């Protein structure tokens, strides 16, 4: 068999030849680290509620603390090690979002505070922000239309 017979043949051959990521190990690590991060969030939430904050304020405090911890760990060169181990487990919670903004800010500091930190800070998180905000506006408009016709969704 000649793998370079045609482009299609070669791409199929490369697909088979390339090593796959250890998917079960990755899923397991993502599961327990992600779960752990959420548990920490829940503990903070419960403590806040104990201290007689309302649910909305407690939620905000959880977000602030998790973002703060994650940004701090990014600065200490530790979050990338957690991320390498846990993958989506640390990427999907709000910790990953904080990391995706802090890491380019650190990386591009050498290009100055305006064009470097300011300009490049959202290179990774930018798409999430653009499409996240766009989607929420869209949902908001739909909600507005339905609620003016006095059909409540919530």
């Amino acid at each position, binding site marked *: 068999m000649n793998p370079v017979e045609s482009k299609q043949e070669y791409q199929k051959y490369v697909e088979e030849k390339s090593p796959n*990521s250890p998917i079960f190990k990755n899923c397991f690590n993502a599961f327990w680290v992600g779960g752990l991060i959420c548990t920490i969030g829940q503990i903070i939430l419960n403590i806040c509620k104990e201290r007689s904050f309302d649910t909305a304020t407690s939620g905000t405090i959880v977000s602030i603390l998790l973002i703060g911890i994650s940004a701090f760990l990014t600065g200490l060169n530790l979050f990338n090690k957690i991320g390498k181990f846990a993958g989506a487990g640390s990427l999907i919670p709000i910790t990953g979002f904080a990391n*995706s903004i802090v890491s380019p800010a*650190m990386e591009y500091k050498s290009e100055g505070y305006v064009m470097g930190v300011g300009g490049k800070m959202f290179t990774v998180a930018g798409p999430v922000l653009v499409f996240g905000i766009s989607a929420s506006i869209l949902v908001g408009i739909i909600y507005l239309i339905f609620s003016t016709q006095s059909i409540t969704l919530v």
Partner: protein
Amino acid sequence: MKKIGKQTILFDNPPTILECASIVGPKEAEGPLCKYFDQTLEDEFWGEKSWEKAESKIIKETVNLVISKSGISNQEIDICFAGDLLNQCISSNFGLRDTNVPFFGVFGACSTFVESMSLSAICSESFANYSLCATSSHFCSAEKQFRFPLELGNQRPQSAQWTVTGSGSAIISKTGQGPYITAITPGKIVDMGIKDANNMGAAMAPAFADTLVTHFLDTGRTPNYYDAIISGDLGYVGKDIVIDIMASQGYNIKSNYNDCGILIFDKNKQDTHSGGSGCGCAATVFSGYLYKQLQEKKIKRLLLIATGALMNSTSSHQGESIPGIAHAISIEI
């Protein structure tokens, strides 16, 4: 100097590789080839403010080192070929701006070192008594330009390669006692439609095979002619593919073929996945390890084929495939 076959150049008066020097980063220093490098760094910054500056310093110091080791002066160098991976080759441009030698910046991605040596050898056949080749790469600056910020907590695919931090440099002399550059086979651009920037080995392997087969056909040599056939940085994935492709063309290269990207790191201990890559990979492995093997006559006939993936981050975002290139240089003592 004459052309034989389709694209191979044979030298009438084979130029000598007079001296080599290499400086590598901390991760390379932990690798199996550590003792062969001239200097190893303790950190990626080397006292500079940015990785780009550090890379310039690495190539600058490597060039200074090779010049001082060879015992010739800057003024005696007739021409210099140098390149790197950063946009518009800033590492070599900035690093060598104080060297005061006629300078050609070259780009062939990870194949740049052999490209530089080939061009130097051609110059040696005409006007140049001494020519200088140097290339560099830096893991951090390359990650920043081609992939994600270093601190981002993501996972690298198994087929991804690790850019070597380091620089290799060589001085080619018109006359000398060897090792001699006896032939070069400049490669063609080969694109088999691979689009995955995390699988460079697969993108470059067809170019490597094309150049190797052409070299054998042009020169009438067989794989057994060489003690070692070394590719630039195909990594583990590319190596497997190349052995398959060559077997399908009727060449068995299993026994004497290896790859610089595989040699420089310990895959199991260093977590480098498919192996090393970058302009500095073939450059440091040749300047450090292979050149000493030639000097000690452990390798008498070496075919070094550096491979390059000719893409940038714009082309990969636009969904373009990755063209590969491979240049071969035959070194004998």
